[in-house]
């Protein structure tokens, strides 16, 4: 009984915890009220890929509501709820940000703004950037004025990202960059790129890398879209010929880019890992019921019934794991566990589309734009982009399990 009863005493005494819970409850109530009053009805529909507001110079709003919603949220800093107020963020703590997410979800409010700026380079600048960089870029990102793309992979360096060959030559106050990037998402739509370049060829490959920022309208930048097995894509090849990059646009220190790259890869993994959950859409069980029907209350193909149930069980466990990992999150973020989220989430998504193909039968073999057939083929890339499944397994075995 000893330790056990002792622990009960501690809990009862946790008055501070109760106080903070009350505050949180008040925040929840006021947030709910504000959302109710300010979120346009048309922004409370489940979001599809076409409805995403990615912002940027060239972005064309699909409706007045979409613009209104972005402006209202940006004004409160809730496009980037956890960023400091001074950089255009919402200044919310971890628990408040979770409440905001929950309340938005409860009215299926759409995210007002999505993209590489909010999810990737913004947090990186916040963590590693100079104050000047923060002041220059973060408010623009939070207001949706500048859209970003990521220049990481190169033809010769996919899984071996650190083997990159894009060369930045030191010219005093600026660099001159030459090289080729591939898999640059939306390079043809983006305003700025955050880009890994090699600033030192003499040292070990991880040590000579820097993360630089430049405007895509700079002279010498060319982006060319890539056609995928699933059809048109957001990916581009980007050619960099004598591109001038100011030294003030280096994030963190010169030759310290790999640290930031790893930090960003963690973010990316977590984001891609969430792909397997397909929130807001109908469950696979519902889709299966619609596609092949029930007989005696059971899906009429017993094998598919088993496969669908197995998938749903795994998916439930994966979603709960993302929730648990976030709940356990320390100040350093989720760290290497993002490799697990990424690995499993993308494998789940591939399995999901294989099942949808089986459910659809020959109808699912028709070739049309924007169908599940194309999404099925596209899903094959999930376990390649953002670090292959094999790389994730390497990360787990080496950094978490301490093998090899």
């Amino acid at each position, binding site marked *: 009984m000893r330790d056990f009863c002792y622990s009960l005493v501690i809990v009862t005494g946790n008055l501070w915890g109760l106080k903070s819970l009350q505050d949180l409850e008040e925040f929840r109530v006021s947030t709910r009220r504000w959302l109710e009053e300010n979120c346009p009805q048309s922004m409370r529909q489940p979001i599809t890929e076409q409805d995403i507001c990615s912002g940027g110079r060239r972005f064309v709003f699909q409706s007045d509501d979409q613009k209104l919603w972005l402006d209202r949220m940006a004004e409160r800093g809730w496009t980037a709820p956890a960023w400091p107020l001074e950089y255009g963020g919402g200044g919310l703590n971890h628990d408040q940000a979770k409440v905001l997410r929950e309340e938005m979800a409860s009215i299926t409010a759409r995210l007002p703004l999505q993209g590489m700026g909010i999810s990737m380079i913004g947090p990186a600048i916040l963590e590693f950037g100079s104050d000047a960089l923060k002041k220059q870029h973060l408010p623009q990102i939070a207001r949706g004025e500048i859209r970003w793309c990521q220049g990481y992979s190169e033809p010769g360096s996919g899984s071996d990202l650190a083997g990159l060959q894009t060369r930045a030559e030191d010219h005093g106050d600026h660099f001159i960059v030459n090289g080729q990037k591939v898999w640059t998402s939306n390079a043809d739509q983006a305003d700025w790129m955050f880009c890994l370049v090699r600033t030192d060829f003499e040292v070990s490959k991880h040590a000579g890398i820097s993360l630089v920022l430049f405007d895509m309208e700079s002279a010498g930048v060319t982006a060319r879209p890539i056609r995928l097995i699933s059809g048109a894509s957001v990916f581009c090849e980007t050619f960099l010929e004598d591109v001038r990059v100011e030294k003030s646009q280096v994030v963190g220190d010169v030759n310290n880019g790999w640290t930031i790259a790893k930090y960003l890869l963690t973010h990316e993994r977590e984001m891609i890992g969430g792909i397997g959950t397909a929130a807001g859409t109908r469950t696979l069980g519902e889709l299966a*019921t619609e596609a092949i029907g029930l007989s005696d209350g*059971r899906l009429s193909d017993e094998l598919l019934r088993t496969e669908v149930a197995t998938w*749903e*069980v795994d998916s439930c466990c994966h979603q709960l794991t993302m929730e648990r990992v976030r709940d356990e999150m320390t100040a350093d973020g989720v760290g290497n566990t993002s490799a697990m989220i990424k690995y499993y989430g993308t494998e789940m998504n591939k399995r999901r589309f294989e099942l949808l193909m089986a459910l659809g039968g020959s109808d699912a073999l028709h070739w049309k734009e924007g169908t599940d057939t194309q999404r099925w083929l596209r899903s094959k890339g999930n376990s390649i982009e953002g670090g292959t499944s094999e790389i994730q397994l390497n990360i787990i075995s080496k950094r978490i399990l301490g093998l090899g």
Partner: protein
Amino acid sequence: MQKLVLTEEEQMVRESAADFLFKKAGPGALREIRDTANPKGFSSEVWLEMVELGWPSILIGEAQGGLGFSHVAMGQIMELCGSTLACSPLFSTAVVGASVLSLGGDRLALLPKVAAGNLTLALAIDEAPRHNPQGIATRAVRRGDGYTLNGEKTFVVDGNVADYLVVSVRADEEPEDVLLFLVPRDAEGVAITKTEMVDSRNSATVQINDVTVESVQRISHSGAGLATLQKVLNIANVHLSAELLGIANECFGRTLRYLNERKQFGVEIGSFQGLQHRAAILWTEIELCKSIVLKALRALDESPEHAGLLASTAKAKTCQVAELASNEGIQMHGGIGMTDEFDIGFFIKRARVVQMLYGDRRYHLNRYAELRAY
């Protein structure tokens, strides 16, 4: 909604349980019980210490002399009983038995004895090798104020040592419902045969020949027997999932240590990517189990209306992963893992028993789909 992390007090329960179980009730203790053919199937000393730690009282309300603490806390202990292979009547008495009595409602008076560790129970429901709680041929025939019971039960965990059996029967007068009776193990007409099990733990077949029971021995309110049984089985399966998680996790931990120790071709075998990737996949699967087990335990405490679906989700998943982890554990240990001298074999043996008890992966996948109406 609670976060998916242990509270401070749950964490303390976990730590003190680990402390005790790894010291006193590890695989070595099980080996001794097996090799000495201990007829009780557990160490009385270990059980007494569990009682002293308050474990049998965790799930029992304060009004009945218990601590009224949480399933999450009990689940931590069950998980660690999986990791250590600890033998005791804890599961059958303090998880299943206490839940039957609490949920049944008519025999609350026994609960203080359970909480104090003075009374042990065993659930006697299955009649065929594969779990089917509604497949009941055991019959209750009304006789005066009571009933006469006839039938046979199998896979009765701790049936050979428990003070009372909880027996499921059907009566002609209520054919739709299931009746649960509390039958003393030494009642006239009850014949118990201990079964030698692959995991060297207690199980028995129970023959019930013209056993007379009084109405007062009935546990469940009229018409609520089946519902009670289903709730009890949800609770049981969530805690079995916790045990399977513990088994899988410990198998994996031992395997990981071995991968870092064993050398072949001049290097640790853990440096081979073929094994690394399998270890990483296994670790990921175990992480998934941790999440669903915690969620299902929380649901028992906070939202029992979701307990059925989550119990089947948890059991289906942990069965799959415990099977994988125990198989990979032996394979990666190589020849030494096949020897009785080495402990890893105890884990695969225990895993299969827990997997089968109250429904295996197949049973719960099917139940999951049924509960989802497809």
